[in-house]
Each structure stands twice: as structure tokens, then as C-alpha cells.
């Protein structure tokens, strides 16, 4: 019997579920696979439709998780095994070695400054570099360095050890081993979030071949003040300001030919937001959004799209491009599309293209499903016990799901569902405690 809850995934959904439970007095273990909590929302520049700075509204919640006496953060960790039942699950957690003593590290960053090895920065979608010893981003929680053994010279070639020499807190420990923790919890809340589909397989769009074709998550990092370009949106080919940008919707989503048939639900409105950001940074730049259906379905979203049209002169084009070609001399792009209104085949010449790819369930969901016996749907989202009446419940009593890992949804919906999962977990604690007393 346990009165604590395990939350898997440290994005906004996992954070909200943890805080709701902790604030009512429940002990929470928050497990996050990467070195910091924050998830996708930490990577976004602004959020729609209020244009709040994303990290600015998220960071206080991240810190609250860190400081909360009822929350134990288990970052850089994964769920390995789950046994038991509602009210009494035994969970095995594997904590990866950071090779840094979390107790000693103060997050001063000296090691990162002196480390000679560069590696692609995952937080910036690989657009910039980080060091082999790193903190994923400035507001990371916990603010503790991690050595990436795949790139570190000591681990790959047995030399260097610069970080150990410069660390003022003597926190570097190359001998650290993976650690296993066994937890006893009453229920489990899954909030594993999403990944972005890599559309390099869709040859017609040229992603990966043409420098000036980028993905929307890459755009978020490029327009963000803390991103690799300091918030200057520049053409990757020549570092010049783009005079025109085209956003392409439904790249791999709503696809009838084998990619992802479902709608990712958030792209129409985040592309609208990104268009407004372009206009805020560079009022002269022309912005187009090529879309199939404008799905501005949330509270205040249609009004937001109307504002983009009227105030910002964002041009919405009903079209699904057939292909993109590059002029090798200028790296400019030609988009071929059918103008839905006239039926004509048209070309649009542009400096940059931002693809809005399908958002897809995490690969890891499969491992979790295997460890727990949970059912996944045909795409790999966790399956609700009942799509209509029990969206938060799963086929296993005591295991709840929230956020994008259940089905496509935006931030407020994820937050609401996360609070909902917290309610279900709280119900389970009340119910099993009562039964035990009988």
C-alpha cells in the first residue's frame, strides 16, 4: 500500500499533474528521461494565442517542482519495470549516470566553458552546438551538468579530464554508475508528450537537402532570444534576413499515403503564431501559410487567425504544395502548388520554407507499454479506457494518461487533462486507503 504517485514525463502535463498532487499533500516522484524537466514547452519561443513567452510562464512551475517538499525529481531516468496494481505498484527506475555529483554541482557552468568538445545541441534541435559536458538550457531544472559519454574525450579516447580539473566544487565523477531505484506508488500518471516527424523521407519537400527548408520546431529555436542565433531569424544558407517565408501545413499528417492520417491539432494555430513572430521581428517580410483546412478550434484561436490576417497581413493560401525546388545559385526556393480557388498550377518563389510536420507519439511509449501491459493505439498513442467517457483512464486501473501522449492536443488541454489525471490519482488513493481500513 502506498500513498504516493509516480509521474512519467517532465513536460507541462507532467509538471501540472505533479504540482496538483503535491499541493494537496501527496508525495510525487517525477521521472524525466532527459537531464532537465521542461519538455517541449521549454523549447517554444512564445505561446498562442496570448503570445506569452513560453519559458517565462513555464520556468516558475519548473522551479516550483524542484523546491516542492512533496516532489522528488528523478531526471535522466527511465521506467524499467512495473508490477502490482492500483494502490500498490512497484516500479523500477533506472537513473543514468551524469558523471557529475548532483549534490556537489552548483550549476556554475565552468566545466562547460572549458570543455573542448562540441556536440549538436538537442535543445536547439541540433542547430547549434553544446559541449560534451552540458546543461541543456539556461533555465534547466535541476541546474546540474551532465557529461555526454558519447562525445566526451575521456570516455571515447581516455584523455582530457579538463572538466574535473576546473570544477570548483569537485563534482565530476567519471566512475558514476547507473543507479536503480525501486519505488512503491499508488498510481502512475503518464505524460510522455510527442516527437516531431522527420519529413526527410518526403523527397518532394527537400528537407535535409535544401538548407532553407526548416521544421517548425527549428523555427521556434531560431526566433527565440535564447536560441542559437540569439533570436535573429536568418536564412540558414547565407545568414541573411529572409524577405519571404512560407509555412506549409500537414507535412506527413492528414496523409492518405502512409505517413500519419490523423490531424496534429496544433499546427494551424502555431504557424499563425510563428507568422506573427516573423512580422514582429521583420515587418517587411512577406509571410504565407499554405493550408488545407484552417483548424483554429480552441478558445480565442479563430480571433487570433483573424488578427494575423488583418493586423499582420499574414497571407493564408488554401493549397497543399506538390513540391519544392531549389535554385542552387541563390538557394531560393520554388514552391509548386495548386491554387484551390482557381485550379491553376502556380509557383511561389521564397527565401525560406517552414514545414509543419506531423507530431507523433514517443517511441518510448512502446517500452512503457511493454513494462506495464498498457495498450497503445495504431499510431503509438496510449489508448484510453474509453475514448468517450474515460479519456484519462487506461486498460490498467491506477495508470492514467494525460497530454499529447493520449492524443493530439494543445497546452491548455494538456494542462487540464493533467489536472484531471491528478484527480483520478487522488481518487485512487482515497479509495484504496478506505478499503485497507475496512
Amino acid at each position, binding site marked *: 500500500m502506498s500513498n504516493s504517485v509516480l509521474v512519467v514525463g517532465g513536460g507541462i502535463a507532467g509538471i501540472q499533474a505533479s504540482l496538483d498532487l503535491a499541493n494537496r499533500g501527496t508525495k510525487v516522484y517525477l521521472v524525466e528521461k532527459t537531464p532537465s524537466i521542461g519538455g517541449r514547452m521549454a523549447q517554444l519561443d512564445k505561446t498562442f494565442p496570448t503570445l506569452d513567452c513560453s519559458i517565462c510562464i513555464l520556468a516558475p512551475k519548473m522551479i516550483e517542482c524542484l523546491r516542492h517538499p512533496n516532489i522528488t525529481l528523478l531526471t535522466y531516468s527511465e521506467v524499467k519495470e512495473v508490477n502490482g496494481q492500483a494502490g500498490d505498484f512497484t516500479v523500477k527506475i533506472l537513473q543514468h549516470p551524469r558523471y557529475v555529483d548532483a549534490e556537489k554541482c552548483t550549476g556554475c557552468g565552468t566545466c562547460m566553458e572549458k570543455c573542448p568538445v562540441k556536440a549538436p545541441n538537442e535543445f536547439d534541435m541540433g542547430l547549434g552546438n553544446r559541449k560534451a559536458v552540458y546543461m541543456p538550457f539556461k533555465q534547466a531544472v535541476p541546474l546540474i551538468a551532465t557529461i555526454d559519454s558519447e562525445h566526451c574525450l575521456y570516455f571515447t579516447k581516455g584523455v582530457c579530464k579538463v572538466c574535473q580539473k576546473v570544477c570548483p566544487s569537485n563534482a565530476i565523477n567519471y566512475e558514476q554508475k547507473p543507479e536503480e531505484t525501486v519505488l512503491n506508488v499508488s498510481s502512475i500518471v503518464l505524460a510522455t508528450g510527442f516527437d516531431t516527424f522527420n519529413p526527410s523521407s518526403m523527397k518532394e519537400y527537400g528537407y535535409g537537402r535544401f538548407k532553407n527548408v526548416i521544421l517548425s520546431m527549428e523555427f521556434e529555436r531560431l526566433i527565440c532570444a535564447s536560441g542559437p542565433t540569439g533570436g535573429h531569424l536568418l536564412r540558414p544558407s547565407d545568414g541573411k534576413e529572409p524577405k519571404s517565408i512560407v509555412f506549409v501545413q500537414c507535412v506527413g499528417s492528414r496523409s492518405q499515403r502512409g505517413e500519419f492520417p490523423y490531424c496534429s491539432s496544433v499546427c494551424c494555430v502555431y504557424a499563425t503564431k510563428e507568422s506573427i513572430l516573423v512580422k514582429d521581428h521583420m515587418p517587411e517580410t512577406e509571410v504565407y501559410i499554405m493550408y488545407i483546412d484552417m483548424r483554429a478550434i480552441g478558445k480565442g484561436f479563430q480571433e487570433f487567425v483573424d488578427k494575423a490576417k488583418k493586423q499582420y497581413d499574414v497571407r493564408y493560401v488554401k493549397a497543399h504544395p506538390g513540391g519544392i525546388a531549389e535554385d542552387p545559385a541563390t538557394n531560393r526556393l520554388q514552391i509548386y502548388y495548386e491554387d484551390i480557388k482557381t485550379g491553376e498550377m502556380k509557383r511561389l518563389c521564397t527565401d525560406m520554407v517552414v514545414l509543419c510536420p506531423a507530431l507523433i507519439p514517443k517511441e518510448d511509449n512502446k517500452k512503457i507499454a511493454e513494462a506495464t501491459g498498457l495498450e497503445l493505439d495504431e499510431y503509438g498513442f496510449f489508448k484510453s479506457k474509453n475514448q468517450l467517457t474515460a479519456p484519462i483512464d487506461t486498460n490498467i486501473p491506477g495508470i492514467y494518461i494525460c497530454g499529447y501522449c493520449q492524443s493530439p492536443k494543445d497546452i491548455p488541454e494538456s494542462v487540464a487533462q493533467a489536472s484531471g489525471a491528478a*484527480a483520478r490519482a487522488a481518487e485512487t488513493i482515497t479509495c484504496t486507503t478506505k478499503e485497507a481500513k475496512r
Partner: protein
Amino acid sequence: MSENKQPRIGVFVCYCGVNIGAVINVPEVVEYAKTLPNVAHAEGNLYTCSSDGLSKIKEAIKKHNLTRVVVASCTPRTHETLFRGACEEAGLNKYLFHMANIREHSSWVHPKEPEKATEKAKELVRMAVAKAALLESQVEPEISVQPSALVIGGGVSGMTAALSLARQDFIVHLVEKEDELGGKLKELYKLYPSNRKSSEVLEEFVQAVHSNPKITVHTSSTVKNAEGFIGNFKVTIADHEGKEEKLDVGTIIVATGANVLKPSGMYGYGKRKKVITQLELENLIKENKLRKPKDVAMIQCVGAREEKEGGRNYCSRICCAVAIKNALEIKELFPDAEVSILYRDMQAYGKDFEEQYQKARENFIQFVRFDAEKPPEVIPKPGGKYRVIVHDVLINNTIELDADMVVLSTPLIQSEEAKELSRMLKVPLGTDGFFFEAHVKLRPVDFATDGIFVCGTAHSPKTISESIAQAYAAASRAGIPMALKQVRTEAITSIINEDLCTGCGTCIKICPYNAIQKDERGIARVNDVLCKGCGVCAASCPEKAITMRHFSDAQVLAEATAALGGN
């Protein structure tokens, strides 16, 4: 606490990465801060809000024996709690903290004028330091919270919230204005995405509610009056005979649902017999009264997504899926019937609706896309039939359809009662008419007023499944103060100087929270729990008898004097 002695102020200037640091010369601001009166320590931090930055504040409080803290960074709206928390952890009353916003008020708005932005940052810091010197410790009173909740609205959202709260072991009063539970579920036929009959689903919910001993159901009842505050609301409800009952509850959940727009005058609705709404169609199917139609034309966005000024701008989210559902239902009942859906954008978002949209196309439901500028025309023909003329943008041609029935998809709109409830509970409605939450992104079911929550279509149009998820969310949020049994309330309230008060009553009339009353001597008295510290009373008192805690005249004047260059 040595706050009455000469204050010792610590100033922490944040770079906020490049947000502030790339524009404002932070070291210069730090050096400037050191020259200000009462400043005992000043430093710059890359991110003052990081765990490292917070430890630095705590260390400095101890090391330099600081009695006031000023952080010059971003907005108190998101970060004040955090910094106050750090002060408290270091033993300093959190009201001895003050913030200067040099990001939103300087670096972000003056990115191209770094020198002027730096000067402005210095001025903002000077003002904050001047006020900080006069800050006083404050106490947030603790009040007890009754472990009982009022849920207003007995639809699927209200029932879900009530059930969850009951299973969390709280007492629940569920108030429904009609004579039975169910709300809109009573009018629907089958429910997406399950294909289950609404009546069956409803029966399960109603059974569960009625068999739960923790829930008291008050049907045919409405809320007549609500007073009090989080933890201690006093609500009066009345049944259809006018019999009143008083309920004491700790929290309130608003789940009053929405209405469907009756599109009077649009496409001849109300005058023409076979021009009906989707809900009316669904009712016909449910009651087994739909006579075999030959051609059905459904028109989307009727009275929604209007681009005109003052129009109903929003997208009602569920109407496309509802149209597809009913179109498929007609096809199943009458395979020969032709069904066309005239739409602007097909809002088949997510997993299930996109699948249904595909299924509809496979079932030969015709989709015709039109532009908002060229809406369809419905022209009556002899014999009670209609001709629908529409410009199909996908083939760039005007087409004509025969219809013996025209079905209008109209949006969900806020109910009339909501306005009354909004006034009674003092919770706001948005420009779209729906209840307006505390924060669109991160507090989707909270109201700005503590202890009151919202869920379901009272908040915005949404599906049943989404309403259920949100109802659980409201049950979680309401469950927090009730599980803790107590909450802390606002410390920034108004104080009446009894010697100056003449009992004129101006403050009583103007207070938006009904927090002021006259005592037996005829002198104004403030209820600290109800007072939200808005300051309207202090500003309007003709005798200057009212002072705001944390915003005293002396503090505000010191800040203003500093803004003008004085000390």
C-alpha cells in the same frame, strides 16, 4: 526582524540570458544600485530565477544581513512568488521583497536603444529601492476550508466533477435547474467517437451520481445568492416552488454548459419548415421521427466565425464533427439519401474526427467548400423543397443542389443564466460570452477568484470527452484546498483609520468585492478575506482614511519621487 532600523537592501539585477543582458548594460546597473541609499549589496545574475540565482539571494541575505530584497528582472506576474519564496527560505518576510521589471518595461521595448534602456533600468531600480526601504512585513491570514463543494450544472461535466469530488471523499451538492440530470446529453442521439446511444451513457452517469452517498442532488433548483469566500461560501439555492435552502461549501464548480444558437432569420430558419438546426435533426433521429429524406444539405458556420466587427468570431469546434456524425447516421438509416456538407474549413482535428471524415467521404457524403465572402443561398421551391446555390471553391464553380431538408450547424453560445451567475459569483465572462479563466494557457479551469472553478462548455465549446477531462481537472483544483483543509489569503488589504472615517459609505458602495460594511458605530470595517487589495476604496475615500497594506501613500510617493529623480 530588524526592519525598523536602517534598512539594508540587496539588489539583484538579472541578465535573463540575452533578454535583458543583450540590451541593458547590467554591470553598470549593478554599480549604480550600489550608490543608492540603503543598498548594502548589489550583484548581477545570468538567470536570477534559476536555482543558482535563488541560492545567491539566500546566501546574500545571510551574508550581508539584508532586510529588504529588490530583484530587477522580469514581471512579478510570473516570478514574484518564486523570489518571495527564496526570501522566506532565508528568514525574510516575503513582503519585504520588491521587483523592478527591466525586461518588459525596458529591454524588450527598447531593443534598439541600449543606452537609454540602461538609463531607464537604473531609474526603475532607483524607484524600487526607494519603495523597498519603506516596505513592512505582512501576514497572510489562514482560513479553514470546508470539505464540501457546490457543483452548478448537472450535465456530463457537472456529474463528472461531482463524482470525482465524492470519490475524493468530499461532500458534494449538485444543483441542476431542470427536473432531471443530464443537460445536453438528454437531447443527443449517438455520441462520438463511440457510436453509443447518449441515453445509455447518460443512464450510467445518473446511476453513479444517485447511488453515491456523498452527493446530494438538487434538481429543479437554481442558485439565488452566493456570499463568502474560498473555504466558506454561503450559497442560497431555490427550487421551482421558490423554497430556499442555504448551503455552506468550501469550493464552487461552474458547469452550467452552453446553449445552441437558434439562427433566427438565417436561411429562413423559423419561417421555413424544413430548415432546421443540427440539434433539431438529431432530435428527430432520436425520436424516430425523421421521414426519409431524398437530399439533405448541411450548412456549417451558421452564425459562427463571422469576420464582421462585433460578430460571433469564434469557431465552435464541434459542429463539423457533429455534422459528419449526423450525415453518417442519415446514410445508415436511408442509404439512398444524398447528403452534402457545405463547409468553410473542415474541423476534423485530432485522431478520431479525421478518421470519421475519411469514413464520411468513403460513404459518398458530398463535401462542398465555400468561402465566407460567398455563403450559400437557400431558395424555396414549390412542394416544400429548396434549391441551394453555392460557389464551390474547390472547382471554382457555382453549383446548385436540390434539398428537401436544410440543416444548419450553429455554434454553442453562452446561456443567459451565465450572466446572472457571473454577477453573483463575481467571475468574469470573456468577449465571446463564455466564462473567462484565470490564465488561458496554464490555468484553464481556475477563476481569478480563489475557490471557484469552471469546466465543460461553460468555458468554451468542446466535445463530451474534452468536457469530462476538464471536469476532472476542476475536481482536482477544487480538491486541493479541501484536502489541505486550510488556505492562506491575501495580505494586501485595506485598513480603515477609525479616527478619520466619517462613515460616509463611499467605500462600501464602490467596493467590487462587497468586502466593506459599517460596524455598529457606523464606521467602515473591511473583511480581510473578501478584500482583494484592489485599492479602489483608498483612492475614493474623501477623508483619506483608508490605507492599502503594501501600497501606503508613503511607499507610493517614495517610488514616484524616485522616478522624478529625487531620493
